[in-house]
């Protein structure tokens, strides 16, 4: 954290330094890589698994490190991915005992695995660069310093290649099993009937989540992995109904969060990963409020419109119901409507006005009467409700 201050002095103000560009590229790669499995986690209602996995991989990394003794070995990724899958299996094992509810099983498994990881580090690996904070919070500002150098050539930051590789792996997985994943996500029963094995697919997806979490934790930390896996797909979910569009939108929102988050962090001189997570949350908030059709504002607008339309239908049906009955005279009195339908006076007036304007209702001697059109409208409304 102390080194980041240097970064700012070098970077902001004049023009983007090479390091800053590299950080943004890495962060964008992470965002896209996370968005792909994230979409399926969100759709399959397993978002909290990303939280569990991204914590539990610490144990896998530590154990793999003890086994190979090299902190930069690629075997660490495999160890971590295995511990991710172990988390998933343990959660499912607990669910099967039926001794605890499903949410409790997740809450029991990952804190234990994470704790064992933390204890092992602080007990036996305290003098090695395997910082628990880095796992949780990440320090993407350091990422450009760890470079891939082959026979003297500087090919750029190592994590760029790691994330690029994982991104390709994710893309291959999604493209190969797109149809199966889609069916299994929207209709698990159908998938089983068609002969896909949802279990295998499930573990494949969890494996992908684990590998992604491992690759990303080094650069951005596990909390940001969770944020980037969930928030962009959640926002995209409110913007589109189509799966391919949702994946692409999630990736774009992820990139936007990464880049805006980076500059916000530079501006505030604050933690970069945290800032990216905050921006992804902000983007969701904006979508949540303003999304066409599914945003809060759109819902509110539609509700006001529909409320009056709905009330007009109700008025017509009410009049139809009482047509020709002894209480018709009373039930159709203008002043009586708000009382019987429990409407506020002003609202009742505006509904009557609306219905008169539509030509469904006439006002005669302070009584409401259905026109032929209104009678038909009420009858049709009733029939529609029957079918629905």
């Amino acid at each position, binding site marked *: *954290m102390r080194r980041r201050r240097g970064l700012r002095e070098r970077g902001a103000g004049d023009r983007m330094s090479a390091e800053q560009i590299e950080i943004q590229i890495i962060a964008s790669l992470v965002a896209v890589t996370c968005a792909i499995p994230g979409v399926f986690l*969100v759709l399959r*209602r*397993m*978002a*909290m698994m*990303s*939280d569990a996995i991204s*914590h539990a991989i610490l144990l896998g990394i530590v154990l793999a490190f003890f086994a190979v003794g090299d902190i930069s070995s690629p075997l660490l990724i495999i160890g971590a991915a295995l511990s991710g899958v172990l988390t998933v299996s343990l959660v499912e094992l607990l669910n099967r*005992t039926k*001794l*605890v*509810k499903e*949410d*409790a099983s*997740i*809450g*029991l498994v990952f*804190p*234990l695995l*994470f*704790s*064992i990881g*933390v*204890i092992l580090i*602080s*007990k036996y690996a*305290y003098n090695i660069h395997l910082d*628990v*904070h880095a796992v*949780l*919070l990440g320090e993407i500002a350091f990422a450009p310093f760890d470079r891939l150098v082959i026979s003297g050539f500087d090919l750029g930051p190592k994590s760029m290649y790691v994330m690029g590789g994982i991104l390709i792996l994710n893309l291959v997985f999604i493209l190969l099993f797109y149809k199966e994943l889609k069916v299994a996500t929207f209709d698990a029963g159908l998938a089983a009937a068609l002969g896909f094995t949802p279990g295998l697919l499930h573990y494949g997806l969890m494996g992908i989540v684990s590998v992604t979490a491992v690759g990303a934790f080094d650069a951005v930390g596990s*909390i*940001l992995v*969770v*944020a980037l*896996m*969930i*928030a962009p*797909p*959640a926002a995209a*979910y*409110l913007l589109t109904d189509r799966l391919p569009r949702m994946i692409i939108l999630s990736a774009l929102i992820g990139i936007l969060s990464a880049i805006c988050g980076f500059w916000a962090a530079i501006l*505030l*001189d*604050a*933690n970069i*990963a*945290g*800032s*990216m*997570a*905050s921006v*992804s*949350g902000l983007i*969701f908030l904006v979508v*949540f409020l303003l999304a066409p059709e*599914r945003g*809060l504002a759109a*819902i509110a607008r539609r509700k006001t419109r529909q409320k009056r339309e709905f009330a007009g239908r109700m008025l017509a049906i009410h009049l139809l119901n009482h047509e020709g009955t002894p209480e018709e005279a009373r039930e159709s009195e203008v002043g009586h409507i708000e009382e019987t339908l429990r409407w506020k006076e002003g609202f009742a007036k505006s509904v009557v006005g609306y219905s008169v304007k539509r030509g469904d209702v006439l006002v005669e001697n302070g009584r409401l009467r259905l026109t032929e059109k209104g009678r038909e409208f009420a009858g049709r409304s009733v029939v529609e409700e029957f079918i629905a």
Partner: protein
Amino acid sequence: MKRGPEKGASDVDFPQIFSDLFLDYTLRTVALGSAVIGIVSGALGSYAVLRKQSLLGDAMSHAALPGIALAFLLTGSKMPLVLIIGAALAGWIATLLIISIVNSTRVKYDTALGMVLSVFFGFGLVLLTIIQKRPDATQAGLDKFLFGQAAALLERDVVTMGILGASAILITMLLWKEFKLLSFDPDFASTLGFPVRVLDVLLTTLIVIAIVLGLQTVGVVLMSAMIVAPAASARQWTDNLGVMIVLSSLFGALAGISGAVLSASVTRLPTGPTIVVCVSAIVIFSMLLAPRRGILWRFFRERRQRGRLRLEGILEDLYSLALEHKDPEHAHSLSVLRLMSAGKGGVERSLEILSERGLVRAVSPGEWALTRAGIEEAERAQGERGGGQDER
């Protein structure tokens, strides 16, 4: 991470620990504090688990971070009470956000939970790095809230925690039947005229308080385990809500004290994770061994039942053979019995067990017959099967 009584050896010296527990100020404070956390989170965690809000604990503990940071930024105070209020407010805003996202959009509960958790935490990190640049801040702040730092507990803190925790528990005791009904059947509670929403808000607030109390000791990342684990363990041992809450508190306190003591006596053993390992050990122990629900218990019961059914089956086979021959004590060959038990095996072994109990006897090698006691037993077993259906 520095702890109070730093000792060279990693061996655990038990008599030393016990004398330390009473004499050593730091250890006593830490153990007391951890016990308070265990009791409060055990008691309120029971409600969270029963209401299927186990992961809400995880979300709220993460969401508390920006609250703590903002409380410090705005007041400049590090008083536990100020930070707790900040954390509780942030936890509350997070819960409200989750509820409104789930209620008004098609985004599901787990997604809302995970998103709020990670975004709030990320925002908390941003605030913390800003705080750390202030001259009056120390680097230790972040550590403390991520993984907890029990050794930093002061007697004053423990008193604050004790008062807050005791008030929270007192409220659950006063509103005992209200919270019970709310957790079991909220619709029914509403028809009886209880303001379900108000009760819901109150109970969730109490859970937030329990979480926030533990943050300083156990840490953000692991506090959720303190909410879920003691309650999940206690549930295995009892079918009574009151007993469950008391047991859950005891388990929480036990894990808190043993974790704190272990981490103080063994070098480089961080407190929060140690407490979580202790509480997880209690979970595993409970799930395996608890009577009736425990896995081992169920395993042995099923085996016993299978064994009993096999013995009864052979008795009945012999009995029906005997009925055919009109001579109850007529002997039958082993091979016939094997045939009748449809190749399930273990016929000889079962016959030996039955003969030890005096229910059958070997007339000659390979030829078995019911004794008088065996006939009675077979008749009784048949009668039982015909009668008690309603019992489970």
